[in-house]
């Protein structure tokens, strides 16, 4: 048996829409098989994982809480990936954003002012952008591989947070636990609709960012520049676009969004700094970006889907007793199927059973 690809004369619009859905279905089928192998009833497990979290209002709020950082980060990454800049270190930019954003509420704990929150959000975004500036600088001026440098910086950021939280920023009244002091009320990101659940403003930021970037990519010159340079650096040069400037732009932009996501997570959901602030949002956002076809509106949808895998993982842990690692397996499977189904957009696939070339299919 052989598989042959035949290039389609033009990109299939139909499969552009169908392929992520197909990937989702395949993931569910494989998920069911996995649950069966773990000795769980697959229907019950999938129901606990993907359906039950959607049936209650409070848990929809939780969904928005988890989707917000994923969408924020993925929208920034989409700009990067579209322009052919491979920022893999969003997890680190998220962490640094959380740290720089927490500077005011931790160091100036006694300063009460309505300015605290906006300043936090700004310093968080700035911190993320500055941290992303390191791989950008190295790529633009030393031609260094940005995949590796941005990734190495993730480990450095996490160790830095660990040092900070066990040292200078440790809560003096925290019984020696490695946590910072709790943020004062004016440093906490408010809930959107307090009567029904915890979802906070980060979700609104995420939606605004997605729509804004969608508009930028579609209607502005900057967006055109991103797409042209991403498809062909040479063509971009002829059009007078600078790929160096694009490296800077895409990294600073995605770093700022990741940093904003970081401070929102700390201020809105956790309420203080601690050694582990992210269940891998920065890496899952890579899946979100691809599942959303690097399109900001698609990313809103895929961010909600990935958020559901986190939520479902937590729920399934309680109700059917599977480990939370299942979440990561689901996410990895999903990305795999997305990538393989995308082949259908550009190619027709023919399976040839006989060994004779061009034989009957």
């Amino acid at each position: 048996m052989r598989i042959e690809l035949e290039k389609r004369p033009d990109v299939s619009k139909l499969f552009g829409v169908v392929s992520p859905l197909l990937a989702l279905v395949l993931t569910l089928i494989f998920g069911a098989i996995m649950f069966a192998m773990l000795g769980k009833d697959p229907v019950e497990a999938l129901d606990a994982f993907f359906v039950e979290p959607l049936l209650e209002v409070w848990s929809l709020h939780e969904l928005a809480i988890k989707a917000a950082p994923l969408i924020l980060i993925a929208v920034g990454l989409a700009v990067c990936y579209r322009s052919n800049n491979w920022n893999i270190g969003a997890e680190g930019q998220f962490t640094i954003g959380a740290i720089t954003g927490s500077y005011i509420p931790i160091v100036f704990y006694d300063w009460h002012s309505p300015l605290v929150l906006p300043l936090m959000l700004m310093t968080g975004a700035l911190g993320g952008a500055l941290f992303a500036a390191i791989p950008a600088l190295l790529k633009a001026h030393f031609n260094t591989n940005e995949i590796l440098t941005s990734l190495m910086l993730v480990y450095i950021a996490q160790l830095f947070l660990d040092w900070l939280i066990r040292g200078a920023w440790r809560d003096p009244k925290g019984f020696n636990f490695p946590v910072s002091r709790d943020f004062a009320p004016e440093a906490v990101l408010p809930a959107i609709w307090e009567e029904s659940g915890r979802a906070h403003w980060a979700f609104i930021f995420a939606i605004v960012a997605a729509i804004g970037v969608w508009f930028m990519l579609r209607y502005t010159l900057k967006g055109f520049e991103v797409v042209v340079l991403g498809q062909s650096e040479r063509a971009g040069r002829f059009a007078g676009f600078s790929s160096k400037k694009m490296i800077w732009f895409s990294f600073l932009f995605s770093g700022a969004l990741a940093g904003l996501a970081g401070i929102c997570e700390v201020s809105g959901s956790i309420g203080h700094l601690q050694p582990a602030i992210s269940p891998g949002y920065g890496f899952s956002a890579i899946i979100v970006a691809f599942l959303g076809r690097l399109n900001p509106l698609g990313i809103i949808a895929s961010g909600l889907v990935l958020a559901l895998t986190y939520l479902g993982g937590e729920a399934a842990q309680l109700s059917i007793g599977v480990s939370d690692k299942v979440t990561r397996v689901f996410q990895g499977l999903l990305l795999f199927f997305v990538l393989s189904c995308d082949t259908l957009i550009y190619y027709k696939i023919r399976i040839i059973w006989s060994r004779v070339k061009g034989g009957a299919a």
Partner: protein
Amino acid sequence: MSIFEAILLTVITASTPLVIAALGELVTERSGVLNLGVEGMMIMGAVAAFAGAQMSGSPYVGIICGIVAGALFSLLFAFLTLTLVANQVATGLALTLLGLGVSGQLGEPFVSVPGIRLGEIVIPVLSDIPVIGPVLFKQDLIFYLSIALVVGVSWFLFRSRVGLKLRAIGDSHASAHALGIHVIRTRYLAVMFGGACAGLAGAQLSLVYTPQWVENMSAGRGWITLALVVFASWRPWRVFAGGYLFGAVTILQLHAQAFGLGIPSQFLSMLPYAATIVVLIIISHNRRTTLINTPASLGKAFVPER
């Protein structure tokens, strides 16, 4: 045993997995395929080796399990990128994410289970040489394999006919195809060799380096491996030298912590990662040499015309 010998021994233990995994990735990249999934394949090898050793009671069965797991896991990558021509960067990332998830799931029953340590093989006579003897000739099987791999890969790439073909594919898949060389088939084998090496490196982690199973125990070594290949400008002996350089940095960091230099341990732990960045800067700085050495069709998909 002197302190010097003890340090040398730990440097060797820390360097061996880096050298092995980097050699595998080097062969893969020489064939023109960029597989960023080393971290995922390595951790799959680590968990499979640990599980295999536990179930059979023999670390040697564990080693085989690690190699097979790495190779099979890399087959997923090969199918997606070579047969379905998916984006190599994204697929490699997917492989790492999936590997970290699956290994965590599979390794769940083995958390805090005491591991089985791979024993040393003493080579008679040679191991009696002072200093060098105990360091080089009283080692575990995986160390000897790593040395054999450096020699073997070097010979294969630059002295054998198949190696010549492999390099030709990496430099220009279209011309190689025109000459009648099986591009896709060779690349499949190269990717699987890379996977097998990553799996073996993982086995070293869970059977020699720290004989136990800890989630995410590869701790970024797979990524350092990728940097090593760039550092070595795609040459096996430089991979060997680079691997030992990185191993030394990792170990120095540990010893510095033990001596209590007054530098917080977190900053010392950053050293291997920071060193990777610095080395990448130095290597990539000279645009011309990197361009000459990089396999020309690295990361580019190949669809045969018909």
